[in-house]
Structure formats: C-alpha cells, structure tokens
C-alpha cells in the first residue's frame, strides 16, 4: 500500500470514530427594546411608576401569604384550573436559587390530551409548549406544534436554554394512550429577544405507531438524548411486541450512539407503560455526565408479565455510556430496589445517593386515604425511606411525579393529581411546584398532566 492509500485508510478510520458532536451554541440575541413612545402616549411615563408601586404592594402581599403557607404542614391546592399568571413568584428563604429559571411545559388548552383515565376514543391536540420563567411567573412564549403534529414530551439540558421536544402525529388511532414520537425538535430559548424561541427539527428517527415510550432524557450538556421505548405495545401495531430498547442518540447528528435491548418474551416491560403515558421522567443522568439511571423491573422476573406482587418491586439500574451496545440487563447494574411501594416516578438523583419515588396509588384493591399523592425519598446507602411531601385529602387516586430534582435531591419540582373517586367522576385537584422541607410552593407551569413528564426545567 502506497503512502496515499495509507493516508486514505488512516484518516477514514480516525474520522469514523467521531460519531457525535455537541450542539451548536449560539449567543443569546440582544433583548428586544421597545420603541420609544409616540407623543400621544406620554401618559405612560407617569403611569409606570404607579404600576411599579402597585407591583411592590402585590409582592408584599404574596410574601406574607407565602410565609403563612410555609408554616402549614401541607399546602392545599388552588383551583384545578388556576391560571399560571395568578401564581406569585418564589421569594426569599426558599431554595429557588438552585432551580433553573426557565421551563418548557406541554400546554393543552383543551384539557383533553391529559385526561385520566384516557378516554378510548380520544382526539388529541394539538398540544403546544409553553416556555416560562419559574421565578417571575412570566410566560415567555408559546410554541405551536408543526402542522399535523402534537407535542408529547419535553426534556431539558442543564444550560437553562436548551430543550428537546417529542412530537407525534395528530392522526392517531383510537385507544392508543401513548402516541409515538414521529419527530424530534430542538427548542432553544432566548428570553428577552424579539424571537424568544427557535425550533429546529432533529435527525433523530421516530418510531411507528403502537410504540410505548417509557422515558426521554436529555443529557445535562445537551449532546445526548436517551430514549426508552418498546415497539408493538399498543394494539395498532401488526408486528407484535418487540424488545425493550434504551437508545442514546446524538442530538447533533441523530445517530444512535448506543442501543441496548431487553428481551421481554412479548410482554410490555418498560417502566411507565402501565400508566399509558408517553414521557415518564424516570431516566436521569448522573453528575459524571456519562452514566444513566433508569427504573426497571415493573414486571415479574424482568422478562414476564408486568402484574402481581412484582408490580411494587421496581429497581433503579445504572448504565455507563462507555459500555458497548448490547443486552440492557447485562450492561447495567441494580443500585436500588423498592419494596412494596408503587412509584409512578422513581428516579436517582445526580449524586447517585438518593432515590425519589412519586407515588402511584389508587390501583389497589384497598382504596382509602392511603391513596393521597406522596413523594418519598430513599437513601441508596441505607435503604431508609422518608416522607418528603404528602398531598392530604383522603383521595381514592393520587399521582405524584418528579419533574426536576437538585443534584442531592433536597429540592424538587413535583406535580400531583388527586381524585376523590377513582374513575374521575368526583373532585379532581392538581397542583405543582417547588417542594422543599415538606412544603409545596406553587410554580406557574401548566398542570395538565401530572402523570406525564409534562414539564422540564
């Protein structure tokens, strides 16, 4: 082989190992300045100070109210349809400083897309995405789904301005509660600019209708998208139930960098399938940036039907991205197992020390006050559990979800859904917000679907 050929071979071998790159990082544009006031509107110059004074008075009222509320053992929710604009800012003394400022949340004005239980012949969407400021309550932008699609999932990077959205086709078959993402989009936000959001379609492939998506999670650096899914779970598929897949895609190129599979003997297996939702939040990234944690074992023997006693025996597994593609169970390891606790969300904190369980009650034979939504955390080292938050009210059905957790799990953003009757015929209450020291302080994100990963911070 001559030198030129050796150069060809060596350069292609080296570049073939470059399979993903980090996303483009463009600077935020300059804030959009309002044009100067026309002469006929000079009155606004003296109205502004008055308005500022009114805001200060309102803020003081909120401060007092929040302080009183914080001394109660639990916070009772406001009206189910509370307007985000009516929620006050998070103020002094709370751990809000650690909370990302911006969030993106699925926003379904019709309320149909997130009904519980989902009607058999539901016509969905289109569901948009609301981008908001969690500290001020300000709505920054609403992002409409591209024509013919509806957003079904959202996940955030750690830079407070990058999100990945999952979109499904609006032409859904009836009885499919978990619309399969047909397309993925990169949402970049630039608050304060004339165009505060930019939506770009990614090359990450979609999956066929009937696929259950059990989790999506964007890495903190925004480079990787972890997706757990299983084809053929829902009856529209003609191909039968496939294996459970955990795939890590490059956000920049859309290529699958890693793909692990779990044979399930034709049974649905991914954590979250039972709830029939499409964006379970149980996949998290550990602080090292290359280890994924995911909930698994929502079945008997990890390869059988997902019912019976094993339902409450969910495990947290971790998998290192340096491991080659292959068998999911062989490549991952169990770091924690929950006993006799039904967790709708079960996630490991970024420091790897705490497991947080958002309860799923109301599907048991005994329906009682035990079904109030709860959040519990467990020490990975000792296995000791601790009640973090309880939404009290003697409900028949209670769902609690963890949407964001600080690295050590001491501060959470969660959402709850509580129904006085299991079938949804009675009182339904929803709430969501910052949870610390047993207290929930409302945040202004839409509360449409606490049982889905509807908001990401």
């Amino acid at each position, binding site marked *: 082989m001559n030198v030129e050929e050796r150069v060809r071979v060596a350069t292609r071998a080296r570049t073939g190992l470059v399979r993903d790159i980090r996303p483009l990082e463009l600077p935020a544009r300059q804030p959009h300045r309002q044009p100067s006031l026309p002469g006929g509107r000079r009155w606004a110059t003296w109205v502004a100070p008055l308005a500022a004074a009114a805001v200060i008075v309102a803020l003081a009222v909120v401060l007092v109210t929040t302080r009183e509320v914080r001394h109660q053992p639990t916070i009772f929710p406001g009206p189910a349809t509370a307007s985000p604009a009516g929620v006050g800012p998070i103020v002094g003394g709370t751990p809000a400083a650690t909370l990302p400022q911006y969030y993106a949340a699925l926003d379904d004005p019709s309320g149909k897309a997130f009904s519980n239980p989902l009607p058999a012949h539901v016509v969905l969407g289109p569901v948009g995405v609301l981008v908001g400021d969690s500290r001020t309550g300000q709505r920054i932008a609403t992002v409409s789904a591209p024509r013919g699609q509806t957003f079904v999932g959202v996940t955030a990077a750690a830079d407070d301005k990058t999100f990945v959205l999952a979109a499904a086709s609006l032409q859904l078959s009836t009885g499919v509660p978990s619309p399969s993402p047909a397309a993925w989009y990169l949402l970049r936000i630039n608050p304060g600019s004339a165009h505060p959001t*930019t939506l770009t379609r990614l090359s990450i492939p979609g999956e066929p209708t009937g696929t259950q998506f059990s989790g999506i999670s964007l890495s903190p650096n925004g480079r990787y998208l972890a997706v757990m899914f299983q084809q053929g779970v829902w009856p529209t598929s003609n191909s039968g139930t496939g294996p459970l897949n955990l795939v890590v895609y490059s956000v920049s190129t859309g290529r699958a960098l890693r793909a692990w599979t779990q044979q399930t003997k034709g049974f649905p297996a991914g954590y979250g399938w039972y709830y029939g939702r499409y964006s379970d939040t149980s996949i998290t990234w550990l602080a090292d940036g290359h280890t994924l944690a995911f909930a698994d074992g929502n079945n008997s023997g990890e390869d059988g039907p997902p019912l019976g006693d094993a339902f409450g025996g969910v495990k947290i597994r971790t998998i290192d991205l340096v491991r080659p593609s292959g068998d999911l169970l062989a490549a991952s390891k169990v770091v924690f197992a929950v006993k006799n606790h039904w967790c709708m969300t079960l996630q490991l904190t970024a420091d790897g020390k705490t497991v947080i369980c958002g309860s799923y009650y109301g599907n048991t034979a005994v329906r009682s006050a035990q079904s109030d939504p709860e959040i519990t955390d467990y020490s990975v080292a000792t296995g000791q559990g601790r009640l973090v938050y309880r939404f009290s009210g003697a409900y028949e059905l209670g769902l609690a979800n963890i949407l964001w957790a600080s690295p050590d799990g001491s501060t959470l953003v969660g959402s709850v859904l509580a129904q006085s009757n299991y079938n949804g015929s009675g009182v339904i209450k929803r709430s969501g917000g910052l949870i610390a020291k047993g207290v929930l302080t409302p945040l202004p994100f839409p509360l449409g679907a606490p049982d889905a990963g509807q908001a990401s911070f």
Partner: protein
Amino acid sequence: MEAPTGRRSAYEAQERVTELFQAHALGLVRLAVLMVGDQPTAEDVVQDAFLGLYRRWPALVDQDKALGYVRSSVLNGCRMVHRAKSHRDKIALEASTDIESAEATALLGEANREVLDALHQLPARQREAVVLRYYLDMSEAQAAQAMRVSRGTVKSATSRGIAALGRLLKENS
C-alpha cells in the same frame, strides 16, 4: 406585529446557521480532528466557525456559499490552534474526559496511528493539502479554493507532504 427587518434577519440567521450546522458540522469536525488531533479542540474550532458565520450572516453577499466560508474558517481555525500550542495542550487534557477517547485509541490500530502521528508532524499547509486531497478526495482546484491559495501551491504542498510522510513512516518502521 411583524418584527423589524433587522430582527427578522437575526431570526433567519439563527435558523439557517442551525440548519447548516445540522447538515455539515459532523463532517467538518471530522476534518478538524485530522488537523488538530483531538475531538474537543476540533469541536471548538467548528463551533467558532459557525459562530463567525452567524455573526457575519447579514453581511454575506452570497449565502449559498456559506458552507465554503465555514470550511475555510475551520481550516483557518485549525492553523490558529497549532500556533497557540499552550491553548492546545490545555484542551488536550480535557480530551481524556471524552467518553469515546479511549475507544478511539483502541480501535484505530497501530498502523493507522503511525500515519496519523506522521500527519501531525507535517507543516500546517502540507497537512491541509494532503487531507483535502486524500481524505476528502478534492481536486487541486477545490483544495485551492478551500485553502485560499493557488493550484500550484496545493500541488507542491501535496507533493512535499506525501514525500515527508513517506520518510517519517519509513523511519518509524
């Protein structure tokens, strides 16, 4: 209300530059990896090139030539990296944290590593010419355009680069 023209342009720039990045950045990072030797530095160079494109977008006379502009920026950025050795060394340390760096070393094989090591010992212009001609299979005219030099310069740089590689590989064998 319709955004002012300037703001529309900024919005368009972000969209178009992001689209170009999605389509071509991987290939440009691969090219830059051959020039600078490690992926984190290569990614920095490509990021800078697209950032430059974004900033200059409104002033681009022919936006269809944006890719050519970025490619030249990448080559220029790689030259700058070689000049700023201390900067390069600093970033090279960070390469060890890349999850694929160990895999890359293991999978390349000794013969290919020898060629790549020799390639990195060439002067920048010779390395560019060799890579553009034999990795991207560019013609002399295309390489000259990308390097912003004459065809004759490409021809001589390629010839000298291949000869130097031959000597280096022979010495190592």
